């Protein structure tokens, strides 16, 4: 019999019961909540007269529609100018208070984007099942956890039963060998992978990222990669546990301590795929060939190296694809065969659950240090992923570097990644964004998003158009 994959192991250790029809009851160790996808779940509990099964597995923080300006944040929830956003944040506070769920409220220094906060606090650990009403929950798979996004009905289901009814996914291995070149980052790797498998290539699969590139990658880099598994169609992305993982987790507030730490580490050593494990699909790439990536269209799979030209629909043989390219170019206001470096930018956004951790900010700061944001830019935003990331960045003086270069330094939240707060693109504006989705209207009605790494976004902010960051560092 073949060995087990990491996903098989995580699945098996959380299987409560398999029904005759093949559906499985899977136990959930950590449930993260935020203000957008939880109110209807709490309401459902109330209507059915149900209580949470366990309180200690739940952790909440508002992130999607919190304002990021100092003047709104300094007065707390009452300072939220958008009336509807305010109701949602207040509703989360009230629900958490009513049911007794731990919440890092907006003014708490630990508040932040839920997928930044979880690992930062040690609230998401290797070997856990982690869910959240947000598709970027795969982020936590970087720790060797089984993590995926769920809908609101499932949020209610987890609150009420601590379980989910699931069907097992297939196993996919994405192995990236070799060493990354200078100026090439985790974001470029995941964008290149999505370019390879397509936006639906991972549908029905749990992806394990393996190979030299991920072994060499920091935990934060691994989080960036796993975060975007969903953009390749996979609900689950993960990386095996190694010393990098254990060193990262050690000493975090919610991580086990003392004898339990020793026990946990012993247990976590097994969280890797067996050498004879079989995958349903294997993709192998050479990391040394990956260049800094830029998306040109309206789907994350519409991505190319910065040195490339925008595709021409006339060169595409498949009719549905050609129509897709045509539609994307029209929306993006681009011409076929236009060099990516000729795309002029109106705004730059550095932040989101993909790229708002301290390493991301250091990477961006290193590029803008001693330089000035181009005069054609309307705005360049830097939004740290959590209050603690913000503190750390300020302790290192990164905020000064950004401000001196002409970027705005904001308070933590999801911000312009999905523009539920006031941070958004105007119609027709091009944005170099370190977020995860370049869908039509995602960053604002008519807005045009180009996904890039923090270093590439920083370089674009200085140049006013896309440039190869390798020429700057």
């Amino acid at each position, binding site marked *: 019999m073949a060995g087990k994959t990491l996903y098989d192991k995580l699945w098996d250790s959380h299987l*409560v*019961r398999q029904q005759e*029809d*093949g*559906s499985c*009851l899977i*136990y959930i160790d950590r449930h993260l909540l935020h203000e*957008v*996808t939880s*109110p*209807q779940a709490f*309401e459902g509990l109330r209507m*059915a007269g*149900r209580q949470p*099964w366990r*309180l*200690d597995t739940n952790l909440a923080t508002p992130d*999607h*529609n919190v304002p990021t300006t100092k003047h709104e944040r300094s007065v707390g929830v009452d300072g939220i100018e*958008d009336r509807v956003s305010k*109701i949602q944040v207040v*509703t989360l506070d009230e629900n958490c208070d009513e049911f007794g769920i731990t919440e890092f409220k907006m003014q708490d220094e630990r508040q932040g984007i839920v997928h930044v906060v979880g690992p930062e606090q040690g609230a998401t*650990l290797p070997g*856990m099942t982690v869910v959240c*009403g*947000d*598709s970027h929950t795969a982020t936590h798979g970087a720790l060797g956890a089984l993590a995926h*996004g*769920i*809908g609101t*009905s499932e949020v209610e289901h987890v609150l*009420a*039963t*601590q*379980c989910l*009814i699931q069907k097992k*996914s297939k196993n996919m291995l994405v192995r990236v060998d070799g060493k990354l070149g200078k100026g090439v980052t985790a974001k470029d790797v995941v964008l290149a992978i999505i370019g390879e498998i397509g*936006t*639906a290539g991972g*549908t029905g699969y749990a992806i394990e990222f393996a190979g030299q590139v991920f072994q060499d990658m920091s935990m934060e880099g691994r989080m960036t990669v796993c975060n975007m598994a*969903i953009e390749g*169609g*996979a609900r689950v992305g993960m990386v095996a546990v190694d010393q990098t993982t254990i060193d990262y987790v050690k000493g975090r507030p919610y991580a*086990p301590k003392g004898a*339990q*730490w020793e*026990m*946990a580490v012993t*247990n976590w050593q097994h969280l890797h795929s067996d050498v004879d494990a079989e995958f349903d699909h294997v993709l192998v790439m050479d990391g040394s060939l990956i260049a800094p990536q830029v998306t040109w269209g309206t*789907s994350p799979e519409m991505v190319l190296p910065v040195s490339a030209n925008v595709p021409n629909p006339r060169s595409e043989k498949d009719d549905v694809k050609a129509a*897709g390219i045509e*539609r994307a170019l029209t929306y993006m206001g681009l011409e076929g065969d236009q060099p990516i470096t000729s795309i002029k930018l109106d705004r730059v956004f550095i932040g989101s659950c993909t790229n708002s951790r301290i390493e991301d900010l250091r990477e961006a700061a290193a590029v803008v240090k001693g330089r000035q944001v181009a005069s054609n830019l309307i705005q360049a935003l830097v939004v740290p992923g959590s209050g603690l990331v913000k503190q750390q960045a300020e302790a290192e003086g990164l905020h000064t570097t950004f401000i001196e270069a002409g970027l705005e330094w904001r308070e933590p939240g999801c911000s312009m990644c*999905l523009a*539920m707060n006031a941070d958004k693109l105007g119609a027709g504006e091009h944005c170099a964004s370190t977020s995860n*989705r370049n*869908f*039509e*209207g*995602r960053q604002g*009605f008519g807005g045009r998003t180009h996904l890039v790494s923090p270093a590439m976004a920083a370089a674009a902010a200085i140049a006013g158009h896309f440039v190869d960051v390798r020429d700057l560092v």
Partner: protein
Amino acid sequence: MQAFTQLTGIVAPLDRANVDTDMIIPKQFLKSIKRSGFGPNLFDELRYLDEGQPDADNSQRPLNMDFILNHQRYAGTSILLARDNFGCGSSREHAPWALMDYGIRCVIAPSFADIFYNNCFKNGILPITLLDEQVDALFEQTFANTGFALTIDLEAGLIKGAQGGEIAFSIDAFRRHCLLHGLDDIGLTLEQASFIKRYEEKRKAQAPWLFAD
């Protein structure tokens, strides 16, 4: 949850791949704390020419007459015909809520994104996966025949009314059962409470750090 047994309805063709949940219901409408009322903003950015706001009077907004849901021939549609990877992106359950609120109870496509597919079943919407050529044929018939309608029979696993005969489809047994009977799966899971407690006891011994209380 509303049960789904049989449905007969007009088919509306949404002829583009990778329709994401941001497109199905844009973020500004996610600020609602209710499950209903999203129908007027379904496909908001495709359906209207201006930018929608949560408290706007949608009846006063300029319509994009190129968009299928604004075509008289598809009025009252309850079956959406779509392309590959329908419902990709954000996990927002507001997407099926918006479809349901608009009156769409069934989506037919060659493939769906996982989270959206799953969310449909929690809300009495039936997503049907067919082969590319079957979907192509349905698009042709929908475009060619005004008032083209289909009957979806979940019990029998059949789509009726298409040219060339009935089309069989399959749905996972558990999901089919819940949908046919409109079952609340939280209630079903709670019937297995003793199994969950037994699992917790075993797990607590193996991994005590996962149990803070």
